[in-house]
């Protein structure tokens, strides 16, 4: 039953762009088409969500055969691990689509609205298909549908050069990744004898090594793992915000899904691979958040935070691999549970934050946080939701981010009770995760405060006005979900148990339940106590009545005035600390990796001339590795261009030469004499 719901959801969401395609581009007809498309997508996703949620608790994994004669049978299957990712897709996608009703109204964007609607539906369908694929080619079909739809969505506002370039970089990156996946599945076919994705109990070492490395590369490009993340900031900044939310919240997770799925199918890997994945996660986490700190662009900042969160997710996965290698079921349950829960959580709060950023962008027309400020007054709801998302993404109690980080921490600490020096040293990941957390707090205090708090720094910030209901509603739903997981973490424990159990498959090790391993109840109660007590104290202060007039002075219990600013009477918005100055110390601390552009010369003389300070942090991988390599490749290609003159005669000559060469290869090894001898 649940499988058919999901199948229908895939078909319907793929078709959700059709109504708009056959209607006029402008005016009411376009609006009706967008409403119809969104309606279809929402219905599809609700059906899919119901199916996926019930499949989470169905014990056996089911397989279905999709007749596809030319490649053998295309297998589809549904197990709790697939269902876990489907729940995320079908939860975020409809919210994102509803958000687009207010954010990108069809009638107002006649050029882009059709393709956005069409490819949005295809993206959802592609992602859902690859998650339920159990056959390499079906998987790749879903994968490429997803990757190409995402390209058209990223480049949808292609009148800007920046967006076209971001789209191109993404396209190149995703195809490099897909190339690695082709290689990986070819190896898989060689090693197992079929394209079917089912668990194998043993595999020859070389093939195993190749499969793990190729899938880490191929899926890592999509997930945005640190050295392979270079396409991500540009693409997420260029895409319309509701698409950024889906890309960052859900599509990156498809890369993670690929890694998790492949590692789940393989036999138990030696400790080395766990350490490698853990180390990759730490690098992604720390450098991701360090790059985020140096950004001035709100959406690029959020994009780098995705790199950081993928790092945290991989830290969980690496620890789970270690636990499996050590035969420690408690570590597997905790770390893998944390990894999976963080996948959900990041999908929730990152979409929420991108929606918030989108509302700000739509109201003010700028993404530069150093031009914003004070928007909490004109956009109170957006600000509140963004602040909630910020607390959640920092992994702070009492929200959902803390729960998943807690599980990962507990998994990491599990290594301490394992004998052996290496096992104990892997727990050094805990201080690294703590550092990521502290850096994230710095970064999100910076982003939230510079955007919403204080006063306006530039005229743009004065244009703030509250987003429409169709944009606020999805934010509210996501915020409620973040709070619900934070306050009642016991709710998700059984879903996590099912998904972890299905990942661990036949390597199990009977897994203990997460609720018995982690103090989820305590955390939930502590969160509720924290919020209610803080609310009570705040209320008590706000509702205070004066008791003795004398002590209060003449002006009553509470009055307002300008910011004191140490006695300076006329503070202006431009005198505030900017986001760049806030991050300067930390950016300096990480200058070995970030290489910020040099600061300008000092001021001279008693009446110095005005000086402008602009700092820019170029992405290290894109700017210093990929860029130069691409230039060299381009220069070499230009040399090859002289063979392509456009003259027909020349091409005939090429054909002739090619024929001669081919004929020469037909001559057997013995040469002409051998030919004669054969006669």
């Amino acid at each position: 039953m649940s499988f058919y719901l999901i199948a229908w959801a895939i078909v319907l969401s793929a078709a959700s762009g059709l109504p708009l395609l056959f209607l006029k581009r402008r005016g009411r007809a376009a609006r009706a088409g967008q409403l119809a498309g969104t309606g279809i997508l929402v219905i599809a996703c609700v059906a899919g969500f119901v199916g996926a949620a019930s499949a989470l608790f169905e014990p056996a994994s089911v397989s279905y055969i999709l007749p596809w004669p030319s490649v053998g049978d295309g297998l589809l299957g549904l197990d709790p691990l697939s269902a876990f990712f489907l729940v995320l897709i079908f939860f975020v996608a409809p919210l994102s689509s509803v958000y687009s009703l207010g954010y990108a109204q069809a009638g107002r964007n006649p050029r882009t609205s059709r393709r956005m609607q069409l490819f949005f539906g295809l993206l959802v369908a592609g992602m859902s298909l690859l998650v339920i694929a159990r056959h390499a080619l079906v998987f790749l079909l879903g994968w490429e549908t997803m990757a190409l739809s995402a390209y058209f969505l990223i480049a949808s506002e292609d009148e800007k050069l920046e967006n076209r370039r971001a789209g191109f970089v993404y396209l190149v990156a995703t195809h490099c990744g897909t190339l690695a996946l082709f290689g990986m599945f070819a190896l898989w076919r060689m090693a197992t004898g079929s394209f079917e994705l089912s668990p194998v109990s043993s595999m020859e070492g070389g093939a195993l090594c190749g499969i793990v490395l190729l899938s880490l590369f191929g899926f890592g490009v999509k997930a945005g793992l640190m050295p392979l993340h270079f396409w991500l900031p540009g693409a997420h900044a260029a895409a319309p915000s509701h698409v950024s939310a889906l890309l960052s919240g859900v599509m990156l997770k498809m890369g993670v899904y690929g890694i998790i799925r492949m590692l789940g199918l393989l036999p138990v890997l030696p400790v080395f691979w766990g350490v490698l994945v853990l180390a990759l996660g730490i690098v992604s986490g720390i450098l991701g958040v360090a790059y985020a700190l140096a950004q001035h662009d709100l959406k690029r900042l959020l994009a780098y935070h995705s790199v950081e969160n993928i790092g945290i997710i991989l830290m969980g996965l690496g620890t789970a691999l270690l636990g499996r290698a050590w035969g420690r079921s408690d570590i597997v349950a905790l770390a893998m549970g944390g990894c999976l829960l963080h996948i959900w959580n990041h999908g929730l709060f990152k979409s929420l934050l991108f929606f918030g950023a989108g509302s700000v962008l739509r109201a003010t027309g700028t993404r530069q946080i150093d031009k914003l400020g004070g928007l909490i007054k004109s956009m109170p709801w957006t600000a509140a939701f963004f602040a909630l998302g910020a607390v959640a993404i920092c992994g702070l109690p009492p929200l959902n981010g803390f729960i998943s980080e807690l599980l990962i921490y507990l998994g990491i600490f599990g290594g301490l009770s394992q004998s052996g020096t290496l096992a104990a040293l892997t727990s050094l990941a805990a201080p690294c995760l703590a550092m990521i957390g502290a850096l994230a707090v710095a970064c999100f205090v910076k982003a939230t405060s510079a955007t919403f708090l204080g006063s306006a720094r530039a005229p743009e910030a004065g244009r703030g006005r509250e987003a429409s209901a169709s944009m606020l509603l999805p934010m509210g739903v996501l915020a409620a979900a973040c709070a619900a997981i934070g306050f009642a973490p016991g709710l998700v424990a059984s879903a996590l148990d099912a998904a972890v159990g299905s990942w661990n498959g036949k390597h199990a090790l009977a897994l203990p339940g997460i609720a018995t391993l982690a103090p989820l109840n305590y955390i939930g109660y502590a969160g509720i106590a924290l919020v209610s007590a803080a609310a009570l104290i705040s209320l008590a202060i706000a509702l205070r009545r004066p008791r003795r007039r004398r002590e209060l002075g003449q002006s009553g219990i509470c009055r307002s005035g300008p910011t004191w600013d140490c006695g300076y009477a006329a503070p202006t918005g431009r005198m505030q600390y900017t986001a760049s100055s806030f991050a300067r110390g930390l950016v300096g601390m990480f200058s070995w990796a970030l290489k910020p552009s040099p600061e300008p010369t000092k001021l001279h003389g008693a009446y110095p001339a005005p000086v402008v300070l602009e700092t820019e942090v170029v992405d290290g991988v894109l700017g210093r590795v990929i860029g130069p390599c691409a230039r060299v490749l381009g220069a070499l290609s230009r040399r090859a261009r002289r063979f392509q003159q456009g003259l027909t005669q020349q091409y005939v000559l090429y054909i002739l030469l090619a024929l001669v060469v081919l004929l020469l290869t037909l001559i057997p090894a013995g040469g002409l004499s051998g030919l004669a001898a054969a006669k």
Partner: protein
Amino acid sequence: MLIIHLVILLALPPLLLGVIGKTKAVFAGRRGPPLLQAYRDIAKLLRKALVISETTSWIFQAAPAVTLVAVFLAGLLVPFGPSPAPLAFSGDMILFAYLFGLSRFFTTAAALDTGSAFEGMGSAREATFACLTEPALFLVFIALAKETGSLSLTKMLRSGSLLFDAAAAPPLVLVCIGLFIVLLSENSRIPVDDPCTHLELTMIHEAMILDHSGPLLGLIEYSASMKLLVLESVLVTLALPFGSGVAAIDSCIFVAETLVLAMAIGVVESVMARLRMRRVPYLLTGALLLCGSGFILIVR
């Protein structure tokens, strides 16, 4: 037991400030304010009127309450002396550390909410230095967890009794020194921050609260002193593991120990100058390395 814990947690903190102040006064040859001055200050502030900047929002007013509650909850997770903490579960030290993260989020955001450049400076410094103290704290946790095989503060901090074992003591001594530096930094004491200057350029914590007044300032002062007690109790329980076995006497010993540690902080503040701001990361990295070396020694 819970009641004794609550009484200590709620009533003792301002006295620590008094003890530090008195110690510094003795060193300077002054008489100094009375020991109970901090109680009077807080009580007075709670009764006063508020002046709130027009630039601020609800975050500015919510931050002191969130900070107080977060620090109070953290105080319930840490044992005061040999008796167990009121709330003890496996992994409580993670919640302990992250509650301080929550309070830092709100304190720094509230400072930026005023739109004042000075408060921005303070908040940037606070956020920057925390990126070094938090990992140091977690290094302490993994060292103690490795030593005791437990993931709960109550049991982890009992490893202090190993301090009297010549073979096991060296790593714990390193960890304790690192923890002391973390304590000074997190509570904005000299040599990281100067709690006594009331002009803006030099400071971290005091710079962030320039615009808070009345009850909000009272809450901030109270939760700052409570944070001092909570972090002191971690160090005291670990480094001075003395107990009699009788709960009431143990609590008295604990209170005496925290007062002694407060005096030690007063001595440090009297004999040292505040470090230059760009030197502070070196000190904190030193703490990080001390805790890390302690952990490596335990694992070895």
